[in-house]
């Protein structure tokens, strides 16, 4: 039996999505740009998937654009927004815990002359609205924050961004990287005044190679990819129709978000309870974070060693970071954790398919690891 607890890295594709992908690969395989009925069928698949994604966000289907990855959608959103608003100001505000597909863009925009302000997180791993308020000025053209942190599960108070921007009189567009939270948290960008939202299919049981960008109607961003003009010119390149079909099907197959969230909360509580009396375990995730993600440190065992040990038993977790030797997790470092805790951190990320039984087996395996793998006698 395998126990897959690395669902924040990627997920197993659900059966509904597999069927949809298969159909788009073998039956409706036309090019959506073609003007015959085979092409039209493919175009309809995309249109259907847009409806599905839009429904989750509570927005209109024509506000959804499919990209070839979440990273590409983030790049397009950030560069597109910054370039479109360049004339009105020069300041960009983001947080210091963003995923590389956002922080990398921010570094590049900084080199291009933008003034980038990175909000430091509080103890709970999320930014404070007060600090955001202090950083905003009338020259701020873009605010970008992740909905859920990929390493700790911390949830950012993104609903405070719009009121703060309005109060500061800033001409800023608001971007939320929702790759880890989409489909898992109730999140309605239209209602809270968010202009741009990034999503990715493979984090919720769709195949890899497909992302999506929500752009609020009326918002224009600059295009920086040239080609056949697909997805209104934002993501030129023949659409990944099988991926999009899978994305749509996976979204359709999502259970009710609130009840799934409750179930996840119970699983998280079980997991914490399993380690409750164990002094070797410390939890790095905030109490009120996304319950699917539990980051914890196992005292005395380096992350990679524990990952190897669990992997031998077909239990898959990840380190909080890319676990490069000498490269500590920046997220955990910024949260001010002691070095020993960072070096022994693992991230357990569950899906709606994770069972209590699996969590119990995982806990036993960690206990076994503690017994065998202590680093020094």
């Amino acid at each position: 039996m395998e126990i897959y607890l690395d669902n924040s890295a990627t997920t197993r594709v659900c059966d509904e999505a597999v069927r949809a992908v298969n159909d788009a690969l073998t039956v409706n395989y036309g090019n959506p740009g073609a003007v015959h009925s085979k092409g039209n069928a493919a175009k309809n698949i995309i249109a259907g998937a847009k409806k599905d994604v839009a429904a989750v966000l509570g927005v209109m289907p024509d506000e959804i654009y499919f990209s070839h990855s979440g990273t590409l959608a983030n790049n397009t959103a950030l560069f597109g927004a910054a370039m479109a608003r360049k004339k009105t100001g020069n300041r960009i505000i983001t947080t210091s815990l963003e995923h590389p597909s956002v922080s990398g863009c921010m570094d590049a925009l900084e080199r291009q002359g933008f003034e980038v302000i990175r909000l430091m997180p509080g103890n709970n791993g999320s930014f404070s609205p007060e600090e955001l308020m202090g950083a905003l000025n009338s020259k701020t053209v873009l605010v970008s924050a992740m909905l859920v942190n990929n390493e700790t599960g911390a949830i950012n108070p993104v609903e405070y961004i719009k009121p703060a921007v309005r109060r500061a009189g800033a001409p800023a567009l608001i971007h939320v990287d929702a790759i880890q939270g989409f489909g898992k948290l109730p999140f309605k960008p239209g209602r809270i005044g968010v202009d741009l939202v990034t999503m990715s299919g493979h984090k919720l049981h769709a195949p890899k190679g497909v992302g999506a960008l929500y752009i609020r109607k009326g918002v224009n961003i600059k295009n920086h990819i040239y080609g056949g003009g697909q997805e209104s010119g934002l993501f030129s390149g023949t659409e990944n129709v099988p991926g999009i079909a899978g994305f749509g099907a996976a979204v359709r197959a999502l259970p009710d978000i609130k009840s799934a969230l409750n179930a996840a909360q119970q699983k998280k509580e079980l997991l914490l309870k399993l380690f409750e009396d164990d002094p070797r375990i410390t939890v790095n995730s905030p109490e009120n974070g996304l319950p699917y993600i539990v980051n914890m440190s196992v005292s005395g065992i380096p992350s990679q060693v524990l990952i190897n040990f669990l992997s031998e038993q077909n239990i898959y977790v990840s380190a909080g970071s890319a676990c490069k030797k000498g490269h500590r997790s920046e997220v955990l470092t910024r949260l001010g954790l002691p070095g020993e805790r960072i070096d022994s951190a693992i991230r357990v990320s569950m899906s709606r398919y994770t069972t209590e039984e699996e969590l119990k087996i995982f806990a036993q395996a960690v206990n076994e690891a503690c017994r065998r793998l202590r680093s020094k006698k």
Partner: protein
Amino acid sequence: MKEIILLKDGELALKGLNRSTFEDILIRNIKERLKGLGEFRFVKSQSTVTVEPENDEIDLDEAVRRIKKVFGIVGISRAAVCEKDINEITRVSADYLADELTFAKTFKVKAKRSDKKFPFDSPAICDEVGGAILSRFRHLKVDVRDPDVTVTVEVRDRFAYVHGTQLRGAGGMPSGTGGRACVLISGGIDSPVAAYMMAKRGVKLTAVHFASPPYTSELAEEKVHELLGKVSEYSGRVNLFTVRFTEIQEAIRDFCPEEMFTVTMRRIMMKTATRIAEWQGCDALITGESLGQVASQTINALKCTDECAGLPVFRPVIGMDKNEIVSVSREIDAFDISIRPYEDCCTVFTPRHPRTRPTPEYAREIEALIPEEDRLIDEAVKTAKLKIIEAFG
């Protein structure tokens, strides 16, 4: 136009009566390395090996790329074959080397006439060919000291051959003429270089890698496979044995003082490697140790580990600086693989303050603290996994 490859075997010329055997081994190695590219014919004469493709479909660029990594060859020339007729020779020279000559400023012609019945002697061939080239490539000047292109014409028994500037071969001795040895390979920078250097002296390679899962990851093992893949482009096939070292390392951790972890581990590695080496018919061990580089590579530590090897230990990088080792590593394209950041078994349970001047007596005493050491080694040898590494399968 028919093309062939001419190979000059350098050091082989020194080997007197053994020479024919050495050349046969060289040809066998080239054959093995060209596997999958098509059929070739091999002819040896006058310290030259001629490699003739049997048909025009064969990718000679790839063949030359592979031959450049075969030890025992000092020079490689790709040559056009032509009839032994002076007009034919001049025409082919200008045609075949047109690309090189177009972009050169200066050239010279060198002629060798092993068929003394050919009516033109060497200076006369040079005159004819040089004249023809000058009249076709009017921008060229003759420079006999340091030309951009040297046009070589060789008139041999059956045909004449024309080739441009000779490429440098890998040098060294043909693989297999130096016996077989067993390299202890970690996945770092030094041991693949050591393996390469001994292979260059004609040694065939067996390799032993010590893995300590779960302390070391699968990725570290794959890294070793890739490194040996690079080495095997030069050395030919390598038999890799991956030894599970976890239980031994745990025993060292549990029973030995921390300051002696590394030396004790190295001693047991030597013993284990010797067992596998002897069983594989190896007559020596090879390590990537460089004097003083780390605590286990001081002269005293080496004295402690050396006594555990039942075979001579070759340490070709013992006197090299790290940057010298790195430059060889880059040359064989191994460096970027070596620096991938996975733990290997040498960095598991690294002592904070290792003893740099252990004595063999003390090391023996410490090693004796491990209960059932022989059984652990037996088990490690018995469960070693074999993987054949071949660069061009």
